[in-house]
């Protein structure tokens, strides 16, 4: 958790963004992140991100659900308190299927969403730095971490990639607990400067 300096470029079209990403990466810059208002198909590949393994987690949660449901109901009906309902078998498998299915789905879905939130470090009360107010509206924002020395040159380079607007600003790179209606210290400082 520390406030760092970033060179920020704002693009107004995907068609400009993609070549820009390519140029920036081949020029050797390490892109801190790209912010888009909606999922841009193929951007993760362009940025060199690995494919997410979220679905594998989902599968494991699902299997856990299946096992829990079958094990729990099986234990209750055969061991804990076997009873006779309408002459049904003690282990009435066909009648277990609906609940087994539901719990499989429930475990998978809830587990995946929690994992999603954990991986993305998002939850109510979490705050992240918004580089450009329209990055959740229609602008595409690229941020590169810079030092005092290379800030100007990076900015200039970003400008050359077709950015509509560029700037250098201090920003908290990670997440923190905070409210979006309050300005953080570094933001106020930045504004004053």
């Amino acid at each position, binding site marked *: 958790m520390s406030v760092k300096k970033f060179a920020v470029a704002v693009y107004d079209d995907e068609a400009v963004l993609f070549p820009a990403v390519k140029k920036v990466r081949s020029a050797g810059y390490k892109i801190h992140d790209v912010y888009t208002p909606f999922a841009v198909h193929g951007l993760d590949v362009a940025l060199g991100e690995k494919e997410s393994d979220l679905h594998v987690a989902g599968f494991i949660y699902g299997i856990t659900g299946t096992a829990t449901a079958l094990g729990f109901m099986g234990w209750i009906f055969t061991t804990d308190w076997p*009873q*006779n*309902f*309408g*002459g*049904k*078998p*003690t282990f009435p498998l066909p*009648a277990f299927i609906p609940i087994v299915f539901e719990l499989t789905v429930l475990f998978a879905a809830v587990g995946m969403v929690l994992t999603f939130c954990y991986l993305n470090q998002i939850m109510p009360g979490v705050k992240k730095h918004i580089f450009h107010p329209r990055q959740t509206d229609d602008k595409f924002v690229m941020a590169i971490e810079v030092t005092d020395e290379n800030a100007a040159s990076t900015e200039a380079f970003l400008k050359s990639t077709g950015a509509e607007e560029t700037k250098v600003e201090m920003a908290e790179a990670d997440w923190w607990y905070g409210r979006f209606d309050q300005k953080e210290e570094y933001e106020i400082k930045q504004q004053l400067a």
Partner: protein
Amino acid sequence: MKSRNRRGAAWSNNPWLQEMPDPITKCTWDNYVIMSPNRAKKMGAELTDLNEVDRDKKVFSIKTNGKEVKLPVLVVPGVHDDVIAVALGYGRSKTVGKAAADLGVNVYPLMGQDATGNLSFYAAAVDLKNTGETYQLAITQTHHSYQNDRPIIHEYSLNEFKKDPNQLYNKRKDALGHYTSPDGVVHHGGHGDAGHDAHGAKDAHAAQDAHGEAHADPHAAAANATKTEEDWQEAYRKNGTLYPNFESHGMKWGMSIDLNSCVGGGSCTIACQAENNVSVVGKNQVLLVHDMHWIRIDRYFAGDPTKPDSIQTLFQPMLCQHCDNAPCENVCPVNATNHSSEGMNQMAYNRCIGTRYCANNCPYKVRRFNWRDWNEADCFDDNVYTDGRRDDINDDITRMVLNPDVTVRSRGVMEKCSFCVQRLQGAKATAKKQGRLMKDGEAKVACQQACPTDAIVFGNVNDRESAIFKLRYEDQKERVFHVLEDIHTLPNINYLSKIRNASEVMSRNPEEASHGSEKAHA
């Protein structure tokens, strides 16, 4: 004018009796005029399909002996076309007590005197007029025929029965014997005297042709095993299902009800009500079909309603059948009802949350729901007396009528016949204390005890010496049947067929007569 009364109204303030449906009309809490369908039609009060649904009955004015009363009309087949009848003993004042006050109409004023000066229970000249008004009668059974072809009751004339006592037995064996093979392969060689093998088997021919008689084969052997007289019922029980068989070791309670002996008097209903703290609900609630009786007597008419002489009446006591494959037990979400190892279908009132799913899924419609707080037993105060007249069962004094061995049920739970489980447990405990086996007849259920004609026999079916066993499997086995046995509910209650001392059984439709056994199979 003929009369029927409850001891001339001497016990009219007893809500049990007020709520007991009249054996013939199935009406409660009121008196009314009964008349034949023909007369009703003439006078614009005919029994229509709508009549079943609509509880508003037409009110007629009756004038005789210079007096007039107004009474609702009930149409009852079998009444002579020129006779109407009213029950005495109604229209009491409030002084008689809460239950009977202001019920019905007092018709004593209509009574004249006969030549000897005695009160005359009939009057010859009656002026009957439709007033155009209507009045609601609380009737517990609104459909009066068992649709003739519904195989829920079996009736034979004495001659038919004499000619072939085994008619019912064979009919059942034909229909159910179809499902007795342990592997589902149906072999037709199995049952002998099936007449033509009409309802037979999907697979029968191929299998039969394949094996021939000489073919030694495990399936054929299995089929042969069910050949013997006693075993096909057991085989149906075990193989007519995809479920395993739950054996009852020790006790296995069973009941037999003889349709021949039953006179429909209803003492079983009241005995049960007294024994098991069954609530009285009041007229308004009976109108909403919220009646609570654990054992009811279904009354059906057969014959041509326009010919009073052709009418035959039939009574079928109906109570929880304690099915071994009970459709109600499966569906309870909270385990409030399940099956005992003694073959009883039991209720845990404490556990019931009142989804009513069990009652819906009961093919016999014998489960009773506590729609309201009849007994001031639930957690809401003062929510009992909203709908007019009630019995006074919640007085401190009258509460003493409650049987302390039996729970008083609160609002929102399901209840039904328990086979008087408190008595059975009591009898078992007594025998155990005395260090001996329980004898047959020691455990009696209330309805059995009260039945004046001994139509109900009850006992342990696993005991080969018991009356119920002998009746069911030896003495009366050709008359035994279970209601709806083709859906494999395996009731622990059986009925004995009705044998009529009449030349003809009116409930038999012509098709049934000619096709007989197919019907049962279908």
